[in-house]
């Protein structure tokens, strides 16, 4: 691909004897939002964990900005500008919102820049500003998600890995968070790799998408085209053609065309 910021090649990752990722290759172009769709257990989170260094692959390479990073410790990967926002937020519950955000900038020495970025994330999420001195553990789920994204943003990453940012959030909040992701991408050129079960949202904000099934990629295309595929419609968007009986319980066979 023309300018791939992240290049993943033939990745294989195991949980003990179980092969969770069975040879996955994909590219994320610089400045793009790319999404990986897949059902529960398809291996989406494992892909992100392997990319960010939380897990080590058995095989395959991960190149970030031209540099191989597979097997590298997560903190070193983070310093290279690749930030992972894990599923379930994982903020520091006993620190305040402001402290959490400053933790995100721990790698940076420029106090002025950090202060400016603090204002930037408060601009994106005014509610965080209002709760600045509150303990993060007392925030609502949606606010915690905002905090987790903001904390990652504080490191001025070149790329963010977002694992199910919409998980457990009210629909209105989901919409808001996705809008911010688009803005972060547009206004700051942050490349985003987004893993989502909310396929409808993900396909509408991302440029390119991959479909992962049982540890393997079965489909890839621009999101506009993916939205048009029958398999995506039926299995990810819940659109069903009605049967003669009016309801249909059985599923078509997936063909991934």
């Amino acid at each position: 691909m023309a300018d791939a910021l992240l290049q993943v090649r033939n990745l294989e990752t195991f949980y003990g004897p179980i092969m969770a990722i069975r040879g996955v290759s994909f590219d994320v172009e610089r400045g793009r939002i790319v999404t990986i769709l897949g059902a529960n257990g398809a291996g989406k989170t494992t892909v992100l964990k392997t990319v960010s260094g939380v897990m080590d692959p058995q095989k395959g390479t991960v190149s970030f900005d031209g540099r191989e990073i597979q097997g590298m410790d997560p903190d070193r990967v983070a310093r290279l500008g690749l930030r992972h926002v894990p599923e379930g937020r994982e903020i520091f519950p006993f620190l305040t919102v402001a402290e959490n955000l400053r933790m995100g900038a721990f790698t940076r020495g420029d106090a002025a820049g950090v202060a400016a970025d603090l204002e930037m994330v408060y601009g994106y999420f005014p509610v965080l500003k209002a709760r600045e001195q509150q303990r993060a553990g007392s925030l609502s789920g949606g606010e915690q998600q905002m905090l987790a994204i903001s904390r990652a943003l504080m490191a001025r990453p070149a790329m963010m890995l977002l694992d199910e940012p919409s998980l457990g959030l009210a629909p209105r909040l989901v919409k808001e968070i996705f809008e911010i992701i688009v803005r972060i991408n547009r206004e700051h050129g942050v490349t985003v790799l987004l893993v989502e079960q909310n396929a409808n949202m993900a396909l509408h904000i991302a440029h390119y998408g991959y479909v992962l099934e049982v540890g393997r990629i079965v489909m890839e295309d621009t999101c506009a085209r993916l939205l048009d595929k029958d398999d995506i419609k039926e299995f990810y968007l819940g659109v069903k053609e009605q049967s003669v009986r009016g309801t249909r319980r059985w599923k078509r066979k997936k063909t991934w065309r």
Partner: protein
Amino acid sequence: MTAACTVHGQDTLPRLFRHVVAQRGDAVAMREKDLGVWRPVTWRQYGERVRRVGLGLVALGLRRRDVVSVLADNGPEWLYTDLGTMSAGGVTNGVYTTDSPRQVEYIVNDSGTRFFFAGNDEQLDKILEVRDRCPGLVKIVVFDVEGLHGFKDEQVMSLDELMELGARYDVEHPGAWDPLVELAKPEDLAILVYTSGTTGPPKGAMLSHRNILFQLGYADFIAEPRPGDQQLSFLPLAHIAERTFTVFYPLRTGATVNFAESIDTVPDNIREVAPAVFFAVPRIWEKFYSGVALRMRDATRLGQLAYRWALGVGMRVAQCRLEGRQPPAGLRMLFRLAELVALDNVKRSMGLHRARGAATGAAPIAPELIRWYMALGIDMREVYGQTENCGLATAMPADRIKLGSVGVARPDTEVRVSPQGEILLKGPHVFLGYYKNAERTAQTVVDGWLHTGDVGRIDANGFVTITDRMKDIIITAGGKNITPSEIENQLKFSPFISDAVVIGDQRKFLSCLVMIDHETVAQFAQERSVPFTNFASLCRAKEVQDLIWTEIERVNKQFARVETIKKFRLIEELLTAEDEELTPTMKLKRTFVNRKYKDVIDAMYDERSGR
């Protein structure tokens, strides 16, 4: 054709069934897995359910020779319906579950189906979609009504409701059943089997009780039946081979039929069941082989060495058998050791460690594959036949094996080759003709000789070799006759190639379209760190293209220069049995493939294109 065809002294399927049910009582006839547990059905229960289904149909107005179509996955209900219908004087017709509503409509109307059995809601939807255009249809019966509560329809009932109806009818009309069972005569139409029809629409082949009983009469040749024998049923029952093997063959042998949960679980189910006799199409045998080949690649160095050594010993034993002589005592001892070291485990991993007999048929198979199974110590025999002769015409004898041939004629079966090179068959197994199609029947059966449409030859010892389907023979632009399936079979022997179609009719050279084996090629790509995403990108990878070309070159070496393949293309879509490119047994349909991939094919013959 006056020879009485009887099994256990009975001359029709309903009588035979009634007879064996009385004999076998509480022995287990079949098992089906439910929530992870294999649940048995005894012959007594089997008999009762067949009777209820049969009388239920009578209560609904089934008349003699009425056609009952079944569109369902393999399971006990299929068998209740099959024998229930025949016992009540009807004719059963199996429909492939992969058929589209349009195909179902054609078959229902062509056969004049009055009663339609659907396996579940998915199959029900097909018939509901087209029933307005099926005027002859009286009633639809559904086996599994899960997901259908709340659905009410005048024309649709559940199998349970039908059986209740049958039970009530039995009480109200005591003594109705036995005369029904006696109704059928040996020469009566018993079942319809629609042939897939690679050219033109499918045709319903009519098979009589005599046809079927004749085949059963000689069915023990694969393995002498023993009490407690297990079978696994997983190929489509709409196919004559699986129908015979699952429904009819146990009537003779008393083997227990176990139904695989689904096509995906077949490898697990075989290991659980450990069948005594196993019939499969070449594609399945190829898959087993590929599976072992792949596992061996991942095995330890020691494991690989042991396997290679043991297989070498097995090959030498197989060679003795092929030459028709006893292996020397020393070699026999060595083979015993080879079994202990590796071969037994290989067989166990496939679930074939208790298989006393194995048969392959319904499509050509590479001789190397048979040799491999023989080396493992599995008595693998190739059989040949077609729907129109009830499935079996020739088989490999146990004591004289000629690889590459389909064996010798079965007892009471005559085989000869017409001046055009076509294989002709005669015997009590030759069908009654195509349903309501006298013209095609007259073209197919001439003076009692069934014209098979297969081209072949017979050697001095009576071994029959099939070279190809008559209509598939390629005549190149240079005027050379080429039988594509010989080349295709060699290609399919590669673990990386699932199927191939050789092209070259009226062309300057041969080319082929290849369908890769997804699993093995993906693993190959992984091992070589060849990046790929979806199926199409896997096909386009240069390394994969090179791999397939290497496999083609390997096959090319075995053929004369005019018969070598010069170019190829991969089919970049992962095809499933629902796709029209494939037959239900997952063979590529030549004519269809030629039509659908015309542009791809033409591009290969474009002067300017490279390899």
